């Protein structure tokens, strides 16, 4: 029986994953799923409304979930329907997260208790928020050039700017639909108003043959109303673009709580899209499924399970639990790969295009390398390391996703799949391998110092693993860095400019080269190798995140502020680990025990002779 445990366990998780692939039916009579699938253009990319809803919720409140006044959980698409079509209801939903006590004080708040506030609650303070933001922006500028980087802004000011940006985003979302159009039509400065709203609209709902030509509802309205733009004998509403009319029908049905009419309008619009704009739907439909499946979230859960299985395999049932962890790891790798490839297909891009995708990729690469290590050494170390790094990198990725759409469009200089596929992939593999070597070294140190489980064969296998991975890291970080130089030569005319990001990569190459030379020269042995590998974590973290924080403050709101503290904390933790690793070997529990055994053996060998 016991020997079947790994298979049974893996099968259970496969079933669980398959169940997560099913898209849950809408909770109300309104077909929110069909609505969420509708394609729109936002931030220059075609995506389902569901993606807009999810990324907006993440940016506004740091979570994809929100509940209505009756505490009923809304799906992101349901919330989006309120924002677009029934803003008066959406304004009452607690959608803005404010955690800064300073900001809450400043708005001194008859605000209800808690972290989350509705637009309705913030409305009386909008002027004050605007005033404070203007002050904060002034503080962020450098009038004389004398010592005025981002640090010139106080924490309060950075937080107020964050809140302001959230309110702007929320208003832009609302401007995406023709709310209050009758009132605007009656006003005197109608033209200016519509033009403003056309610019402000966050989501462009009116399809065009070319994806960059999609229009917002207001743009489309302007075009229709332009002199000669329509048949004057017919009423305006009949001349509107079919997409605008379709959304209007949905909005009317939604507001009169007529679910069948709403569902019918969505279905009809969908059919029209399939006829005229079918080519766009393949990807947006896939993305909708991808969102619902949340592959990286599933991976995080799986990584936790693998971690526990591998850890316990060192205490009990090494074979059964070890194999269970391994096969679960393979399953997780499949899911992680699925997520990675889906993103590549959706974007038509190589795997790494921004910081978010680099986190996903590093986790994936470490996982792949660990599967190979585990296959060779079969001691649970590979599984445990993969689980740790997989979980941490995906957690980092989650925090990065709070900044907005993770599949953002690439600025012109990055718009080259060749270099993204070669330089960026190679360098990121270099990061991944250097981190992996560091993680393995941490396992060596922790097990050696605090447990008696680091026996000779385990120590030797860890030594081989770390050495092999450092070689791998040297190769990829070197090739990646030089390819980066060649890219720079192609696009800016210089091979090397000692730019911070380049220097970060160079540091990794230099450090890995130092480790290898120190080992070849015999200056370090097993423990030295481990301590140097741990320092590699600090070097890589600096290169991955640290250099992005050089201009910290001015251009980096949100995660980067906190990330700075996390980075410092991480560096300190690594230094502590190196200090622990620096403890003389005779005080390591594992080696103390071995020394005792050795002494006992020597004793035993010696005594009979002495007796004789």
């Amino acid at each position, binding site marked *: 029986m016991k020997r079947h445990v790994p298979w049974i366990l893996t099968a259970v998780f496969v079933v669980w994953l398959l169940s997560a692939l099913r898209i849950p039916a809408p909770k109300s009579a309104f077909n929110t799923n069909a609505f969420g699938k509708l394609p729109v253009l*936002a*931030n*220059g*990319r075609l995506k389902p409304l569901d993606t807009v809803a999810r990324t907006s919720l993440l940016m506004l409140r740091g979570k994809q979930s929100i509940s209505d006044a009756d505490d009923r959980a809304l799906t992101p698409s349901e919330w989006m329907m309120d924002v677009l079509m029934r803003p008066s209801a959406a304004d009452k939903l607690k959608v803005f997260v404010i955690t800064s006590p300073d900001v809450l004080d400043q708005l001194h708040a008859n605000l209800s208790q808690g972290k989350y506030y509705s637009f309705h609650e913030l409305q009386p303070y909008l002027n004050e928020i605007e005033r404070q933001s203007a002050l904060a922006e002034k503080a962020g500028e450098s009038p004389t*050039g004398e*010592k005025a*980087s981002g640090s010139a802004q106080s924490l309060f000011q950075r937080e107020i700017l964050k809140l302001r940006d959230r309110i702007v985003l929320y208003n832009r979302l609302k401007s995406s639909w023709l709310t209050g159009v009758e009132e605007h039509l009656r006003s005197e400065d109608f033209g200016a108003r519509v033009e403003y709203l056309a610019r402000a*609209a966050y989501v*462009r709902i009116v399809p065009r043959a070319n994806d*960059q*030509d999609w229009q*917002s509802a207001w743009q489309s309205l302007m075009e229709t109303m332009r002199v000669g733009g329509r048949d004057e004998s017919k009423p305006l509403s009949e001349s509107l673009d079919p997409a605008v009319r379709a959304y209007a029908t949905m909005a009317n049905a939604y507001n009169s709580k007529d679910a069948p009419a709403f569902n019918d309008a969505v279905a009809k619009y969908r059919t029209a899209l399939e006829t005229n704009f079918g080519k766009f739907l393949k990807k947006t439909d896939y993305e909708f499924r991808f969102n619902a499946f949340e592959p990286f979230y599933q991976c995080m859960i799986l990584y936790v399970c693998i971690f526990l299985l591998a850890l316990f395999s060192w205490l009990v049932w090494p074979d059964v639990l070890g194999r269970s962890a391994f096969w679960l790891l393979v399953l997780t790798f499949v899911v992680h790969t699925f997520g990675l490839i889906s993103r590549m297909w959706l974007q038509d891009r190589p795997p790494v295009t921004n910081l978010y995708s680099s986190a996903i990729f590093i986790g994936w690469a470490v996982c792949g390398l660990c599967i190979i290590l585990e296959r060779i050494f079969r001691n649970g170390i590979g599984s445990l390391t993969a689980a740790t790094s997989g979980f941490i990198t995906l957690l980092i990725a989650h925090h990065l996703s709070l900044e907005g759409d993770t599949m*953002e*469009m*690439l*600025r*012109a*200089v990055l*718009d080259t799949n060749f270099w993204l596929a070669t330089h960026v992939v190679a360098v990121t593999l270099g990061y991944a391998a250097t981190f992996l070597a560091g993680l393995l070294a941490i396992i060596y140190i922790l097990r050696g110092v605090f447990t008696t489980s680091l026996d000779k064969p385990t120590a030797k296998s860890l030594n*081989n693993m770390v050495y*092999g991975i450092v*070689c*791998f890291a*040297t*190769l990829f970080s*070197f*090739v990646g860095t*030089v*390819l980066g*130089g*060649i*890219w720079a*030569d*192609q*696009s*800016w*005319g*210089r*091979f*090397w*400019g*000692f*730019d*911070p990001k380049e*220097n970060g990569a*160079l*540091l990794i190459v*230099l*450090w890995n080269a*130092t480790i290898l*030379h*120190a080992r*070849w*020269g*015999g*200056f370090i042995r097993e423990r030295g190798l481990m301590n140097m590998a741990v320092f590699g974590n600090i070097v890589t973290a*600096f290169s991955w995140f640290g*250099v992005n924080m*050089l*201009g910290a403050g001015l251009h980096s709101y949100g995660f980067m502020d906190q990330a700075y503290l996390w980075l410092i904390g991480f560096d300190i933790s690594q230094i502590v680990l190196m200090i622990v690793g620096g403890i003389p070997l005779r005080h390591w529990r594992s080696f103390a025990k071995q020394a005792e055994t050795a002494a006992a053996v020597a004793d035993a060998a010696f005594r009979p002779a002495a007796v004789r």
Partner: protein
Amino acid sequence: MANPSATSVERVIAERPSAPKSAEVSAALNTLIRILKPLTSLRLTIACLLLAMVLVFVGTLAQKDLDAFYAQKRYFNSWFVFWSPAGKDWRVPVFPGGFLLGTVLLVNLIAAHVWRFTLSAKKLGIVLAHIGLILMLVGGLFTSLWSRDSRMVIPQGGTSNYAESFKDTELAVIDRSPADHDEVVSISAPMLAKEQTIQHPKLPFTIKTVQFFPNADVNKRAEESKPAAATQGFGTRLAVTPQPETTRPEQENLAAAVVELSAASGPLGRWLVCEQINRPQTVSFGGKNYDIQLRRTRYYKPYSIHLNKLTHEEYAGTNIPKNFASDIRLVDPERHEDRDTLIYMNHPLRYHGETFYQFQTLQNDKFTVFEVVRNPSWMLPYLSCLIVAFGLIYQFGFHLTKFFEKRFA
């Protein structure tokens, strides 16, 4: 310190030379070896690598407040990193600079490989990787010696036949009287800064720098009572406020100078020349008109580039640039070239030893700016990358197969 492998390496080195013919030669050789041997040491390699890491790290952090150009000059394109106390003139070297570390590493690399060179399949990868590295370091040296970058600014529909320096300044004296060309005499800023009298056979007058400001603000004279900066030209209405030289990111120095022109017959007057005012002033002498102007140093080309059209696209509803592209016409009478081509991001034009990159656009896309780079050694990194990559793959592949053979034998 127990260090078997390191000592064994050094022993091999010491025994290497073949037995010399006479005792004297032998003694001399031995001395030479004793002096040179440390250059081959692996310890030296590691020391250099570690120092380089510190240098790179510090040079990176410095770029928070220091423009990349100056950071590079101070930390990487230098023999030593100097420190000087605030407001003092003297300075002390506190750390080896990029040139020094690069040179020592290069010597170390070459020396070590010359000493230890053995051609065997086992070492082939290592040797190749290091040959590649030597190439790369040499390439870096050549680049810092011979490469020059400049920019070419062309308005929509306009034409240009010169590039200008990013940082260097010149005083140009231009005689426009020849029918088919302009005669330009250029005086570099360091020459002006010496505040000496300058003579040139093509000029009928001498130029003496009265004052030179590496960075200055030029404004309308506030009060008539204050002395004017110059006696001739637009300087009569202006006053100069010296500014400290800046090395901060995204700021530039605008030089200014007051020059006195004199002919054999006596002084012609004083002119204010400054980069802030981007137009020439005319000096009439001996029936001829000369234009004088302080400007970024220009490099004239035997060909010209005409900007047909500049395109700047953004993704719909965002400020994210999607594409910058300059549609240009290249006309070179000497080489009989006359063709249209497109320069855009990651797609430069290589022509006549120089490369034109789409760099930026100015004033709401009224101007395109190309970065123009001359770097004769640009191929070396490509070559060295290939060699190193091949060497490393070979070497680590070798180790890996050995490891698997042992493990799964």
